Each structure stands twice: as structure tokens, then as C-alpha cells.
């Protein structure tokens, strides 16, 4: 039996800043994971990724990352690597996204 599809967000790095970005429902990009569009359908996720990969002028390395609906109803990462990407380095709490969260 095929494994159940794990919901996904589309993520990449911003071309200019290198910062982690996420695709939102309106097709624009956000730096906050909890604002990302969570794709619960595999075909839609792949379609969104394909569109993102065509935006070479503003991002690098788009891919689908596992996510789930968090307690607040917003998407949250399921793997620690993706969780670190939403925050920044743990040795400098004032560096990266966490400085503004």
C-alpha cells in the first residue's frame, strides 16, 4: 500500500538574502513558516513546487518540506531541520528569523 501523503509546504532560499522563504496561498512568498500554504494534496503540492521552481529570478533551491497543522491551526514543521530553518542558529538567539519572532 502506498504511504499516506504527508502535508507539505513549498520552501526555498531567497536569491538576494539567502533567507528561508515559504510559498503562501496567493502565490507570493513569506519569511514566516506559519504563514505558508499547507498542501494536503500531493498533486497540488507538486504543482505549486513546479511553479515555484520557475521563479529562478528570486529564489534558490525550492523543495517540498513536511509540515503539519499546529495547535494554533497554522502550519508547523515536523522535522527538526525544518524547525531550525524557521528560527535561525541556536547559538545566537538574535540572529536569523528568531530575532523578529
Amino acid at each position, binding site marked *: 500500500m502506498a504511504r499516506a501523503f504527508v502535508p507539505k509546504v513549498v520552501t526555498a*532560499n531567497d*536569491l*538576494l*538574502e*539567502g*533567507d*528561508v522563504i515559504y510559498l503562501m496561498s496567493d502565490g507570493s512568498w513569506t519569511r514566516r513558516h506559519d504563514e505558508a500554504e499547507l498542501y494536503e494534496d500531493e498533486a497540488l503540492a507538486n504543482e505549486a513546487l513546479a511553479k515555484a521552481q520557475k521563479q*529562478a*529570478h528570486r529564489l*534558490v*533551491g525550492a523543495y517540498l518540506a513536511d509540515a503539519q497543522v499546529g495547535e494554533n491551526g497554522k502550519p508547523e514543521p*515536523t*522535522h*527538526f*531541520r525544518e524547525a*531550525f*530553518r524557521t528560527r*535561525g*542558529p*541556536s*547559538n*545566537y538567539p538574535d*540572529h*536569523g*528569523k528568531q530575532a523578529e519572532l
Partner: protein
Amino acid sequence: MYQYNQFDHDFVRNRVNQFRAQVERRLDGSLTEDEFKPLRLMNGLYLQLHAYMLRVAIPYGTLNSRKMRQLAYLADKWDKGYGHFTTRQNIQYNWPKLKDVPDMLDALADVEMHAIQTSGNCIRNVTADHFAGAAADEIEDPRPTAELLRQWSTDHPEFQFLPRKFKIAITGAPNDRAVTKAHDIGIRMVRNDKNEPGYEIIVGGGLGRTPMIGKTVREFLPKADLLPYLEAILQVYNLNGRRDNKYKARIKILVHETGVEQLTAMIEEAFETQKAYHQAPPAEMVEAIEAQFTPPEFDKNPVDEAKLSKVVGADPLLRSFMETNVHDHREPTHAIVTISLKPIGGTPGDATGEQMRVMASLAEAYGYDELRISHEQNVILPHVHRDDLPEIFKVLKDAGLATANVGLLSDIIACPGMDYCALATARSIPVAQELSNAFEDLKEQKDIGPLKIKISGCINACGHHHVGHIGILGLDKAGVESYQITLGGDGTETAAIGERTGPGFSYEEIVPAIERIIGRYLEIRESDEEEFLETYRRTGADPFKDALYSDEKEAA
């Protein structure tokens, strides 16, 4: 210090200009990322987890105050006010913006520095003993050879697309501080029975997923034969290295699969061909390089020992610093000072722009304008008059740079790990920080004695965990950080690969696990003088495994 000639200046500046145009074309959409990525990597620009990272080469770890100040300038102007010194004697900036990188490279070119060949399947920055030219045990200064190799390997057309990256390390001292046996080529300066200078050539060392201790392919190579011999090694590797499998592409696998005897024969055969048309570098060129590394005119004034011992006697912190961070210099009036970039609880290898300027000023005022970066992620003042030690200590203390822990438990090597690196499978920096905090009492660390803990956040082993007395390897085990421990590793002339103790430990368990190892060592060492590695070699792993896992057995 090496000096660029006009060719070097033009070459580096041209590369910056080329890269500036490449960045512009990437930004205006003329280049795709697939096209741009190899170009940026050739100029040391990586894309990591949270941002770009620029890796700048520090040739064999050698700096002067001008270069160090420029590194501080880059940190302040284009990064977040700090830089990270690495186990490759380089510096990495973790937060550059793509559009700023050409300006950063221009600023580096202003002080004869660049980021070329800090990535890619080419010969990387040659590393060397950080005590070069200063150590009391040195046979010969390795830096002129390192500089010759830098010039030879930079943009060498035959060796830009090797099967895999290629690292060369060199030492001129019998006590190996450059980990030569864990490099693709390790070079040890030796003398033969006629007392002629030459090189021992070691090939096929490496860490990573398949750690190997290098094998000697030539006990004694006359100095003039070095370049044709290295070209012979690289040719054999270039032709026979496993290009079919990235994980088997390093020369260590070729050495392992071919066997050292057969490979040596292949190298010697290629060497005979090479020698026929490869001229030794002209004597005047070698002399010109050697002249750039003439020892400074050392201050001949005798040390005021009475005054020094009085000052040291009155200041326990200074005394402690003298015991751990000050090493013998070949001039008895002088000393080598290691500035620890491992403050208790800090990030190994990080220095702020301000700290870099303090170190630059100290080098200028007291250190004949010389600085070194060690592969252990510390900074060295290689030549200081012993009379100046108290003043140097005072300045370092005011700058938060006087931690007296060199060679002790908290002098930990850690790779950037998953806090920065896109390849990492777990974090390593916070493990180092928590270990350092757990043993914050430096007196306790001194009681424990010399101990090298090395932490890597993935199997690529940038944190040298295989050669740590205690090695820690962070992995992703079913979506959770898990840390394997190895014991008994050694990166010196008695090199050894550490042995795995058994199952790994979670992030929360790893520091207590290391504490149990230390506790067991203190229980079983034969005397206070028996160092951790000696105890391990005497007893083997069993007592430590028992300390690590006995509770689990009892519970089971």
C-alpha cells in the same frame, strides 16, 4: 608573510571582476542557479540553511595585522559583526548578501586575500603547523613550502576538476600539529642520514564517512623533487580516482583499493615521466619565497625573570594562562601565545570584529606583526617576548579573549553543524557550548588534564571527531538528533581513528554521557599525570562503555 606580485594582484582582481559580472547576470535573470552555482562555489560562496556563507582562504593560517583588520572590516560592514574561524584555518562569514559579495571580495583583494579554491574538486587551501617558524621543536619552517604549493596549486589547469576535493597539510616539526596523517597528502619535513632536508610524503589520509590514516609513499623526497612528485600523485589520482561514486572518490579510497605498494609504484612511474620535463622551480624563485619568511629580528633583550615571576605569582589567572596558553619558542626569550576562541559557553572559533582588531593590535605592538589561525579554531601570536606576556594577557582579558583552556576539555573543535550548514544532520555548536558550561570550572578542567573533544554535525567530519580523544558525531536518527561517541582518536604523529562506543545518545543525553566518561577516567587513571588518551590506551574501551551503558543493562 607571502607577498603578491603583479601577476597575483591582476589574477585575483580579474576574478573579482568576473564574479561581479556573474552576480549581475544572476540577478538580472541571464544565469540560472544551475549555471551560477559552480561559479559562486569557485569563489567560496555557499548557500547554507539560513543565508549565504562566504569562505575566505587564509593561506596556511597566516595573517598579519592588516589582513586581520580587514577581516574585521568585512565582519562589521557586510556580516553581523563576527567571523567564524574553521578547522581548515579559514574564516567563514555566515550572513553575507549576494549583491555585497563582489565588494567583499574586492576588499579582500586589497589585502592580498581571496576565496578562490575554498570549494570544489580542486586543491584546497594548504594548511600548516600553526606554530610554524616559532616552535622550539621545529626542524624547518614549512611556510616557504606551503607558499610554493599555494602558487603551484592556484588555478592549476590540470587539477581544477579532480574526482573530489583535495587537501594538503604540511609540518616542519616532529610533533604533528597539522594532522598530516588525515589529509589527502601529508608532508612532513625531515632530514636524511646525510642531514639533507627533504620531505616524507603521506598519502590517503582522511576523515569523513570512511576515515583512514595516511600511508607513507616516500620516506625521503629531496626538496627539489616536490612539485613533480606531487604532480605524479595527482595524475595517478586524476586518472584512477573513483569518479563513478562520490563517496568513494577521495584518494584514500584509491589507496585502500589499490594497496599502498602498487600505488607507490604507479606514483614512482609517473614521477619518472614528470621529472623528465618538469623543471624544479628556479633557485631565485625559491629564494624569493624563502626571503618572505625570514624570521623577524627577535628582540635580544634578556627576560626580566624576577619581575615576570613576581607578576605571574601575584595573579592566579595569569599563572593559569601561562600554563595552558603559552608554549615554548625556539628563541628562549620568546614564547608562543595561543588565544583561545573557546570562551566558556561560547561558539568555538567565533571572534567579533572588535576582537579581531584587538588581536591585530597585539600582533602589531608585541608580535612582529604575525598571527596564525590554528586548525583547532584558535588564534596564535607566534612570536612574543616573554617580558610582554603580562601586558598581552591584560589586553586579552579586557577583550574576553583570555580563557586559559588551550588543550583542555573546553578547547573543543566543533563544525558549524545544523545551526548553519546545509549538509549537517544534527547540531554541534550547542553541544560544545553545553559541554563547556558543564565543565566551566577551569581548575577542574586542569585536574582532568589534556583532552581533545571534537564534534561533527554530520558524517563528513569537518569537526575531526574521528581524531578526537573523545569524538562526537551528530546524526539524524529517524527524525531525532542522535550523537555517537568515539574514543581514542588522535590527530598527532601517533595518529589513530577513534572507536565507536556503541549506541548513540539523544541531544539531552550526550552531555551527561560525556560526564560519565570523564568521571570514569578520573576513577581509573593510575595517577594524576596519566592523560585521558594514555588511560584509554592502557585500559581499552571497556571501562568507558561500562560507564556509558551499564545503567541500561541494569534496567534491561
